[in-house]
């Protein structure tokens, strides 16, 4: 028997593709958030609201992942921005190769943002780097406020947590303060935004967050050939 030390990440191939994607997106000045939540937390509606109300001169493209159907792509295509559906055919998450394939033929130079809507799932998407700038995790008030403690891997990797459906707070038992406390237990410094995609509360803060983060990522980007 021969023992061979391997010491290799299981998802090293995914990470290699994600790294290339990230470099490509950064080089083209595209800001890319990866939206993760359980099914029904409001990912697609948040994207619809963003496509409908963001300043019109901003150029956005969307990749939306689902196990089956192109319903989300149809919903999102109404806003006049390029949208592609990734149908995983059973897989519970997107991986970097699916994103790489879906981007084929798109002129990244002509984009400011690439939104990736992951498959609705709080477990598996957290393992797969898609080359995004940030993972944005959405938790809605119709879920339990202990979700961050039940799915710490996902919440700990979030660059932003959006607490959605705050318009329903008077009608549900969701404890907003406790939810925030739980988010901070697994991710002490993460920003948290309170939003209702139905009433529009908090959306201005969300747009401002996106613009701020994109501006920061452009500043951090090395400029080649500049005098």
């Amino acid at each position: 028997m021969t023992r061979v030390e391997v010491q290799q990440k299981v998802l090293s191939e995914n990470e290699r593709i994600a790294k290339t994607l990230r470099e490509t997106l950064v080089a083209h000045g595209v800001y890319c958030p990866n939206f993760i939540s359980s099914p029904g937390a409001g990912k697609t509606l948040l994207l619809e609201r963003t496509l409908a109300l963001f300043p019109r001169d901003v150029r956005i493209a969307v990749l939306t992942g689902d196990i089956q159907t192109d319903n989300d792509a149809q919903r999102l295509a109404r806003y006049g921005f390029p949208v592609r559906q990734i149908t995983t055919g059973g897989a519970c998450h997107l991986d970097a190769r699916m994103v790489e394939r879906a981007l084929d033929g798109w002129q990244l130079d002509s984009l400011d943002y690439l939104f990736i809507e992951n498959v609705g799932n709080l477990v598996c998407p957290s393992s797969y780097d898609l080359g995004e700038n940030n993972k944005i995790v959405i938790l809605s008030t119709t879920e339990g406020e202990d979700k961050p403690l039940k799915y710490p891997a996902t919440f700990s990797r979030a660059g932003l947590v959006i607490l959605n459906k705050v318009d329903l707070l008077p009608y549900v038992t969701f404890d907003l303060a406790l939810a925030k406390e739980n988010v901070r237990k697994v991710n002490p410094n993460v920003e948290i935004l309170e939003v209702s995609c139905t009433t529009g509360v908090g959306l201005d803060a969300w747009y401002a967050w996106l613009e701020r983060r994109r501006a920061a990522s452009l500043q951090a980007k090395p400029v080649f050939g500049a005098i």
Partner: protein
Amino acid sequence: MHEMSIATSVLEAVEAEADKHGGAKVTKIGLRIGEWSGVDPEALRFCFEALAAGNQDGGAPAIEIDFRPRQNRCPSCGTVFALKDFEIQCPQCRAEVTEPFSGNELEVAFIELEEP
């Protein structure tokens, strides 16, 4: 439940490694899996069994899993401690801010090959 894709990725990595050694038969795969890796060790074992059931040559490799608990390290005094109830304060020097040390691993640690 993405353990099937994880198991497939493991087998690809292992196959590539075994090829470097003349395609010797793999008898054991050693994995390192963190508590916060998002992968359930038992579900992963089940997937290896399911994948091996489709093997024609039989004799699936044994799977050894080194499960790594979520641990933090204190930058002030160097203490490494297991996180209980998400409490990140250093139990030794009471420093408030400590850094993740282990628990995110998802790695192939080693393989064992049959002697040629």
